[in-house]
């Protein structure tokens, strides 16, 4: 037996469902390869085709539905062999732990009988042997033998899951597919089931395909993950790579929605719904915030981007919007040079929130100004979408970089009306017709949840409250449809409740519009709540950089530890 020969290979599998004479694509040309002894995870939202994939392997797609492609089990194409031969392989070699539901077991047959039914019918064991086997199987999944005479409705959800697992391993299969083995379970039960699955695998040495939308179980039991969306695999890679460094915008959205992976962060789902109808282009394009024209026209193929790493995206995954390389800035104060920023490098990806944390005077605002082009750096380069940032060009662009400053009172001229302030960037940069400008002003106001009435548009800024002013400042930035929004201590002058509202507003807008955010703050705990990554600055230098959990739990530098401790004492 060749250990490296794939146990299961799927080649451009396609499943079309016929529902009332309409055709829906359940799976769109998936190819997979599973090595013996390896565990594959398949994640995706509900309706992404995960279960359909499992059913296809088990030969459960019947007419009128259509299935095409190849499913090779140890080199044998399950789609082309006779039903009789297929029945010999199914359940004997490949078994499925069905998704737990009330009616997954026959309600009028005892649990024990269902466990060994297949053994009795095909392998022809006697009634006595069957009974012994039932007890053995129940014990293997930590159930008492008395349950063999119970009926399915007498079992709890957790017990039913155990029975389903016992049923799947009854013929000692070489490949077991688990369909949502822990869905709707409490944390303690989930842990037990995961432990059970691991133990069974050790004893029985089967390979696994685990289907779930739960990332925590993936972390525990699989080696690699395939991310599915609308019937296609859009990203695949090793578990750690996928979770720590998602490349596809959808995968990142999925991870951002997972409380197990990011226990302290606010949860933001992916806006929109899965479009069920087959579309020409990338099926995620309508929900993607970095989609281009091509994304709607052509379907992206899975492409290799690293060792064991594949992604299906025309833009090569989440794009790097900002690349800051070795910037340095000195200020001259009375013939003396003060080193404000020293050799700082970082990058910001599309749609990401990065926090720049540090005490006052650590150089945060200076970096913000250099990045947005308001202040030239002494050394180093800043690239925005692979183009060098020269002076304030990116700030004048639509879809460029916009900045919102700390103090809304001095940032907005008191001589101007609300409408004039928000329209100003459009007018200065001569963007759009008059009507279009008015429309965009109103849209920006609606986005920041301010009234769009003429009365409000004609108000002078000094009549607004601090929170309202800051919203107007945000609206002024949004009217330019920025790809990066730099928020420089935007909440520090607001009271607590207004601060909370402001942050939620910004995150909500980001979730829908997909701009990246450089969030400058001195509050490290706030950063953990809203940011994916944190950069800690001290005296103009980066002392810590990493994912927000990592930074707070395993702070590297003394400065970060001080910030973390100080934050706790607050």
């Amino acid at each position, binding site marked *: 037996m060749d250990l490296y020969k794939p146990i299961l290979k799927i080649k451009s599998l396609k499943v079309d469902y016929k529902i009332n004479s309409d055709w829906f694509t359940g799976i769109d040309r998936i190819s997979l390869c599973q090595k013996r002894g390896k565990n594959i995870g398949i994640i995706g939202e509900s309706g992404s085709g995960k279960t359909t994939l499992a*059913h296809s392997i*088990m*030969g*459960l797609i019947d007419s009128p539905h259509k299935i095409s492609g190849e499913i090779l089990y140890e080199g044998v194409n399950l789609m082309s062999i006779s039903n009789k031969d*297929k*029945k*010999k392989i*199914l*359940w*004997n070699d490949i*078994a*499925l732990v*069905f998704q737990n*539901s009330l*009616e*997954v*077991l*026959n*309600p*009028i*047959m*005892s649990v024990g009988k269902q466990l060994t*039914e*297949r053994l009795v*019918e*095909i392998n022809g064991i006697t009634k006595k042997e069957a009974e012994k086997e039932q007890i053995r199987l129940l014990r293997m999944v930590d159930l008492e033998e008395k349950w063999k005479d119970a*009926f399915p*409705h007498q079992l709890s959800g957790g017990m039913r899951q155990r029975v389903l697992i016992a*049923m799947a391993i009854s013929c000692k299969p070489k490949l077991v597919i688990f369909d949502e083995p822990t869905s709707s379970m409490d944390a303690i039960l989930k842990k037990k089931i995961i432990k059970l699955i691991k133990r069974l695998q050790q004893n029985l040495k089967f390979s696994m395909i685990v289907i779930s939308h739960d990332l925590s179980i993936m972390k525990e039991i699989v080696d690699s993950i395939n991310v599915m969306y609308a019937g296609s695999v859009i990203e695949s890679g090793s578990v750690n790579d996928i979770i720590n460094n998602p490349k596809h915008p959808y995968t990142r959205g999925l991870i951002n929605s997972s409380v197990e992976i990011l226990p302290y962060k606010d949860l933001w789902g992916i806006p929109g719904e899965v479009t069920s109808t087959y579309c020409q282009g990338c099926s995620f394009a309508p929900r993607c915030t970095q989609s281009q024209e091509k994304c709607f026209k052509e379907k992206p193929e899975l492409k290799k981007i690293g060792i064991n790493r594949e992604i299906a995206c025309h833009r090569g995954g989440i794009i790097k919007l900002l690349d800051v390389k070795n910037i340095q800035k000195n200020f001259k104060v009375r013939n003396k040079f003060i080193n404000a920023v020293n050799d700082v490098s970082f990058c910001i990806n599309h749609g990401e929130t990065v926090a720049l944390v540090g005490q006052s005077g650590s150089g945060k605002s200076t970096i913000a100004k250099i990045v947005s082009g308001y202040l030239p750096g002494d050394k180093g380069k800043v690239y925005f979408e692979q183009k060098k940032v020269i002076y304030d060009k990116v700030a004048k662009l639509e879809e460029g970089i916009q900045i919102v400053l700390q103090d809304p009172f001095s940032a907005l001229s008191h001589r101007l009306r609300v409408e004039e302030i928000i329209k100003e960037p459009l007018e200065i940069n001569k963007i759009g017709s008059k009507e279009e400008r008015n429309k965009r002003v109103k849209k920006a106001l609606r986005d920041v949840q301010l009234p769009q009435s003429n009365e409000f548009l004609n108000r002078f800024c000094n009549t607004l409250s601090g929170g309202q002013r800051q919203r107007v400042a945000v609206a002024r930035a949004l009217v330019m449809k920025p790809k990066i929004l730099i928020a420089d201590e935007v909440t520090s002058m607001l009271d607590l409740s207004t601060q909370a509202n402001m942050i939620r507003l910004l995150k909500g807008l980001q979730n829908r519009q997909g701009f990246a955010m450089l969030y400058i703050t001195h509050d490290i705990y706030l950063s953990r709540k809203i940011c994916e990554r944190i950069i800690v600055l001290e005296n103009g230098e980066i002392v810590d950089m990493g994912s927000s959990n990592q930074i707070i739990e395993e702070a590297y530098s003394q400065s970060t530890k001080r910030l973390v401790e100080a934050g706790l004492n607050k």
Partner: protein
Amino acid sequence: MKLKKKEKIFEYIFTLFIIITLNFALPRMMPGDPFLHNTGGEGEVFTTHTVEQIQYYREYYGLDKPLYIQYGTYLKELAKGDLGYSYYYKTDVLSIIYKRFPWTILLVFSALGFSIIFGTILGSISAWYRNSWQDQILYILLIIISEIPAFLIGIFLLVVLAAALNFFPLAGSISHFRDYSSNFEKIIDIAQHAFLPVMTLTLARIGGIYLLVRNSLSTVLNKDYVRTAKAKGLKEVRIKYIYALGNALLPLLTRVSLQLGAMIGGAILAESVFAYPGLGLLMRNAVSVRDYPLIQGIFLILALMVMIANLTADLLYKKIDPRV
């Protein structure tokens, strides 16, 4: 669990009491009088009694007494197992019923059996080949049949198969004054007589059973546990009969036990059409001559029959479906 059983027994006794009371009240609420015409059935010459004669009979049968006393006597006699004495046939009610009862049982249960067997088979075919041409044809055919009133089917069968083609006897349950060389010959004779009424009743019932099985089985075939069975690679026969049909027939049991009353109603019509000497025909005669004790007796026996059927269904259900 025990309390439930007691409750159930009380329920049955209470129902029986209500039935007995209704049995007593209903005939007496009908217009007419048992002694207006004492001889002759429908279409015969009536001999009318004089006022004195009627008075005499009323006193003789105790009908002149207040209703509550009559009711009391009825209950007392019933407790002793005495169903009374027929005004019209001038014999014991129980012995009249005893003679007629087997024929009705024969009709009702044969029809029930055939309609369940054929209804289930056809319903299963329709469900397994749902939306195919077989299903479409069966569906239309059975809907049409079940929409035709039972007596019309009966008359049609009688005219075509018995009167015109002479395949079956026109009336009765058995050939009179005939010597049988063997028991088998007798059974054939009885079957020939019963064939048309049973067929009528079967045709009247089969549509409902067909539709029920078709829907129930179609639902069950899409259930998760049928998919589980398929994935387990079980034999087609096992999936079809043990998994699918086993679950699909549960509602049929309820339906059949509930419909037994209606079935007996249908038997009365069929017996009239085919002049079949069962309880139904007897009941029709009893009602037309206002033979109170006989009406009460027949009603009671039929009600008991329905109740026993319901009880059996209850017990059977418990045995088949562990969830109940």
